[in-house]
């Protein structure tokens, strides 16, 4: 593998040693692996990397039914923040944020992590009270988050309309300066390259169609569209496919899948310095390094795997954006797409062992999975390697839906995460 550095860049730029080589191999599946990870998104590829790096487990395959990073990793709006209310959530997402800060160096791949600040707008007295409660809770947990007045919010994000005549006037905002965005494809590619360099096989176009179990109940392999592959352990990290793959092992989950749409505008000059979220008008926006405004909204009301959605939700989102940022009213929208998000009843993920020995689940991330990518990958690798959860993901069990010990971010998250 070529190590990326300024000297490699210069050598390649002057053409001294020809073309850039392929960054990771496309191997044929082996007969058996120590660990099979189902789903080659950021979470699954990252888990393969941390299994090798931190636990010395290198006989690993990442199976992907489509193409690498083609699911929710490539379909989200790349927002990263950790200002969640509950202790369990703040700890989980801040663990991820800490890993984001060193990720490009760690995997020698520029994921373009940009801590430009995530600002969450408050439009009502209730919003203000809730956000201030979040800020106090975050401070107690050592998570950076601060309150801005409407004028301070306008100074931080000049295109923002703070007129009191707006349908939902801005009364203030919560700002997490450590939050920001990253390049989603680079996250998948960087982890794929780093995992492959440490021995993991990444196998695309290989849909898992069944999970085979030994007579003692343990998993022993997966049936796939490319034949049977043996495995001592199986980690399911398949986002929208998670509940379907778990069903193959006879485990029913509390996960339901909904469409979530996003869109980008034509590219413009740098005009938007941060990320802005608004729960009340239900929209979020940032500007990519290409210059496109990246805009997303909430999930659709009905369950679906269609990876698309109705235009009326897009219209709702765009009208909210135009209300908050009148300067963008004349922009044309360029592309629009949908993803399928796997939602749990308490809107918190599951990173856990399952009732089936040797089978692990990382799923139910709903609309908030991208920001957690390095953290989820790191914790999944730990859970698989040690056959027990890390203290950070110990509360994120499947059993919590039986015991009632929920992590109820459905009510607590300041926005659709």
């Amino acid at each position, binding site marked *: 593998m070529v190590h990326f550095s300024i000297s490699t860049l210069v050598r390649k730029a002057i053409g001294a040693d020809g073309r850039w080589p392929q960054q990771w191999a496309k191997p044929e599946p082996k007969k058996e692996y120590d660990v099979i990870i189902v789903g080659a998104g950021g979470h699954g590829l990252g888990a393969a990397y941390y299994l090798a790096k931190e636990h010395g487990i290198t006989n690993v395959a990442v199976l992907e039914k489509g193409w690498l990073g083609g699911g929710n990793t490539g379909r989200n709006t790349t927002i990263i923040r950790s200002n969640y209310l509950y202790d369990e959530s703040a700890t989980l997402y801040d663990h991820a944020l800490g890993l984001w800060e060193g990720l490009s160096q760690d995997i020698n791949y520029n994921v373009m992590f940009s801590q430009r600040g995530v600002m969450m707008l408050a439009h009502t007295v209730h919003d203000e009270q809730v956000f201030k409660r979040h800020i106090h809770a975050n401070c107690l947990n050592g998570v950076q988050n601060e309150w801005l007045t409407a004028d301070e919010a306008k100074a931080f994000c000049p295109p923002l309309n703070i007129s009191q005549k707006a349908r939902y006037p801005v009364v203030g905002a919560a700002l997490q300066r450590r939050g920001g965005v990253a390049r989603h494809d680079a996250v998948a590619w960087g982890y794929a390259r780093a995992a492959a360099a440490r021995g993991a096989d990444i196998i695309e176009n290989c849909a898992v169609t069944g999970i085979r179990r030994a007579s003692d109940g343990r998993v022993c392999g997966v049936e796939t569209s490319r034949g049977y592959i043996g495995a001592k352990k199986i980690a399911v990290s398949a986002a929208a496919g998670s509940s*379907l793959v778990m069903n193959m092992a006879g485990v029913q*989950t*509390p996960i339901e899948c909904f469409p979530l749409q996003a869109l980008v505008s034509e590219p413009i000059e740098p005009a938007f310095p941060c990320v802005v979220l608004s729960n009340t008008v239900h929209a979020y926006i940032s500007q990519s390094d290409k210059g496109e405004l990246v805009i997303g909204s909430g999930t659709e*009301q009905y369950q679906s*795997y*269609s990876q698309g959605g109705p235009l009326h939700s897009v219209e709702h989102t765009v009208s909210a954006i135009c209300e908050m940022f009148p300067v963008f009213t004349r922009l044309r929208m360029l592309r629009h797409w949908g993803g399928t998000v796997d939602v749990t*009843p308490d809107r918190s993920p599951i990173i856990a062992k399952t009732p089936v020995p040797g089978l692990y689940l990382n799923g139910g991330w709903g609309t908030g999975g991208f920001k957690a990518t390095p953290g989820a990958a790191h914790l999944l690798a730990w859970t698989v390697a040690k056959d027990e959860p890390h203290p950070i993901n110990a509360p994120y069990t499947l059993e919590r839906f*039986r*015991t*009632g010990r929920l992590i109820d971010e459905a009510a607590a998250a300041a926005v659709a995460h």
Partner: protein
Amino acid sequence: MLLIHCPYCEQERAEIEFSYAGEAHIERPKDPSALSDAEWESFLFLRKNPRGTHFERWYHIHGCARYFNAVRDTVSDKFLMTYVANKPRPSDLEIEEAKNGL
């Protein structure tokens, strides 16, 4: 936008008149105090979440304000049929016929 046939109003109307209400045919426990934790979990939280034919409830909130059931394909989003709330789950044969009728 989905077009949804309300079996009470007997009209096909736009999705924005309706509110989704989750998986259908989940029976409320007859004797709640007798339920185990596992049975509560199953009733409250565990869902089929199929990729394909799904039985689901819809609420005609801006119309007749009544709940009804629907069979919809969760990949194509096409409705196979809708029926009133107290009617039993359609048989596989009825669903197959509805598919062929589309």
